[in-house]
């Protein structure tokens, strides 16, 4: 389609205007198809959550109009699994990891960007090298250590392993590089030590960078499936991603409406936060690429 437009253009001497209208129509067609492919599955699952019977859901084509909406499916979710516990556990886990990483990464990022000390380059090379050792590789010894410490089946087993983040240190080091050096030199002349410079000069200027790391870390660990699957064997301590799989059953044995209701309840809060904080989330994720 694109190539034919290009090829025919010079021969027919189409005015640039006509050509550009064709290209714009094509552009919008592609974008609309792509957006539909993203939005339609969510719309379908939301509708499934509100439908009374599974037979209705499997009818093809799906009827856009739902005659008798019901919220019964949502009640069934709470009967089958401790859904609120899943949500609470997920909030505690993702929130704690985020808070811990903000501390470890901002302090280390500051040290690598602003302090002079021996072995800095070697240490930083080690940080970057550890990017290549993801948690998936070390999951077996991590499990054994947590089991030895008696922490499996507790949220600690999910919170502790991701506290160190090479990505986060790198991101915040780049951010501290970008702040003008005059700032801390002025503070130093005024007699401030590193702790004061860090807390009273640097951190107040780091809101957006910290938010970037916070949003990326929170979404990543909110969504993680592997760690809870390995560490947690007790339904009450499970997080939301595994909880949804439990609800669905291994081979889709549960009722479709109930599963859809569970998925919907997992997605709607994310959607609301996403829409409210959209500008910031978009900025954060976009800038993660620019800063590296």
């Amino acid at each position, binding site marked *: 389609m694109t190539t034919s437009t290009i090829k025919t253009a010079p021969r027919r001497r189409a005015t640039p205007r006509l050509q550009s209208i064709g290209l*714009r129509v094509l552009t919008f067609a592609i*974008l609309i198809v792509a957006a539909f*492919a*993203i939005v339609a599955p*969510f719309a*379908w*699952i939301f509708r499934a959550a509100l439908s009374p019977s599974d037979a209705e859901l499997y009818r093809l084509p*799906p009827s856009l109009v739902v005659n008798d909406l019901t919220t019964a499916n949502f009640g069934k979710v709470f009967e089958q699994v401790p859904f609120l516990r899943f949500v609470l556990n997920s909030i505690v886990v993702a929130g704690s990891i985020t808070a811990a990483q903000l501390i*470890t990464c901002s*302090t*280390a990022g*500051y*040290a690598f960007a602003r*302090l*002079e000390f*021996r072995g*800095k*380059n070697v240490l930083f090379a080690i940080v970057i*090298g550890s*990017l*290549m*050792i*993801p948690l998936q*590789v070390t*999951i*077996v*010894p*991590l499990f*054994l*250590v947590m089991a030895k410490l008696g922490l499996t089946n507790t949220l600690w087993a999910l919170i502790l*392993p991701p*506290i*160190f983040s090479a990505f986060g*240190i790198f991101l915040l080091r780049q951010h501290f590089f970008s702040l003008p050096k005059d700032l801390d030199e002025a503070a130093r002349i005024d007699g401030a*030590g*590193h702790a004061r410079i860090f807390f009273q000069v640097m951190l107040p200027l780091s809101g957006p960078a910290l938010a970037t790391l916070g949003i990326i870390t929170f979404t990543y660990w909110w*969504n993680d*499936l*592997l760690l809870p699957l*390995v560490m947690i064997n007790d339904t009450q301590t499970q997080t*939301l*991603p595994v909880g*949804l*799989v439990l609800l*669905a059953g291994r081979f*889709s044995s549960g009722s*479709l409406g109930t599963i859809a209701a569970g998925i919907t309840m*997992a*997605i709607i809060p*994310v959607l609301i936060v*996403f*829409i409210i904080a*959209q500008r910031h*989330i*978009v900025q954060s*994720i*976009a800038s*993660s*690429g*620019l800063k590296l």
Partner: protein
Amino acid sequence: MTNTTVRQAVGDGRKPATHGGEIAPKRRTRPGDGWAAAAFLAPSAGSFLLFVLAPTIGVIALSFYSWNLLSDGTFIGLDNFTRLFSDSRLVAVYRSTTTMALAILAINIVIGLLLAVLLETRMPRIIRGFFRLSFLFPFVVSSSAVALIWRFLLNKDLGLVNYWLGFIGVDHIDWLGSSAWAPVAVVLVNSWKTVGFSILVYVAGLQSIPNEIKEAAIVDGANAWQRFFRITLPLLSPTVFFLVVINTINAFQVFAEPRVLTQGGPGDASRTVVEFIYDTAFQSFDLGYASTVGITLMLVLVVLTLIQFRVSRRFTFYG
């Protein structure tokens, strides 16, 4: 290799200290910095030692043992490593992982760029915002929810995807149950979730290209294709490089999609290495061998990253 890269990345103009530290009088290191650095690095160093270094040593140590959770392990020397070479299942799993990873990478890099460029064309702000949000939304939804939704949609007889494909004459595809299509399903679902991230990073990269350069090219008579391939793409190369590295590392760690969609099957058709490690360790309780496979994954990631950094030095243009 890593060292030089890092030194370039540091780029703060500090000369590398070549002489012995104690007798170099001109070092500008203030006496207090060492202690301050130790304090600032302590939280990271502690968590690094406990949760990165110790488990890494652990994974290497475990690979010399036969260990099944019930009893303490027995030392078996290099048996796990020789087993790697005769394990035809592992070869098959690596083959399917690599194929799926390449496809996920290609979709993110190429389709992501296409959609990002289209997003940057002239359009009302509110429409652009709508597209951008829809593309990004799956990225913040959990992989297991995404995979569960698609498990319904890709159902062979009752799924919407096959129903719609029927209109263009495609017969019912067994997305989740056939060894030809199961990997395709995993690739599509994973890319569907991640491509929004790539699009957004591309858009940020595109916006950072100064308009003057494009305008100058228009004045010089360059057409849209020339402008894209001669100006936009070279200036975008650091972004492309970043996305290649990130997407490669991510694509080799896919776990949730095959786990929920296909259980790695049928057979091992859509099993990824991470899923293989999980199964070996926590379903067959063969912890020693699972660790050995973990080491191979680590080596693959190290080699791939080093290659990418080397290649990037030739092709990446940092204006």
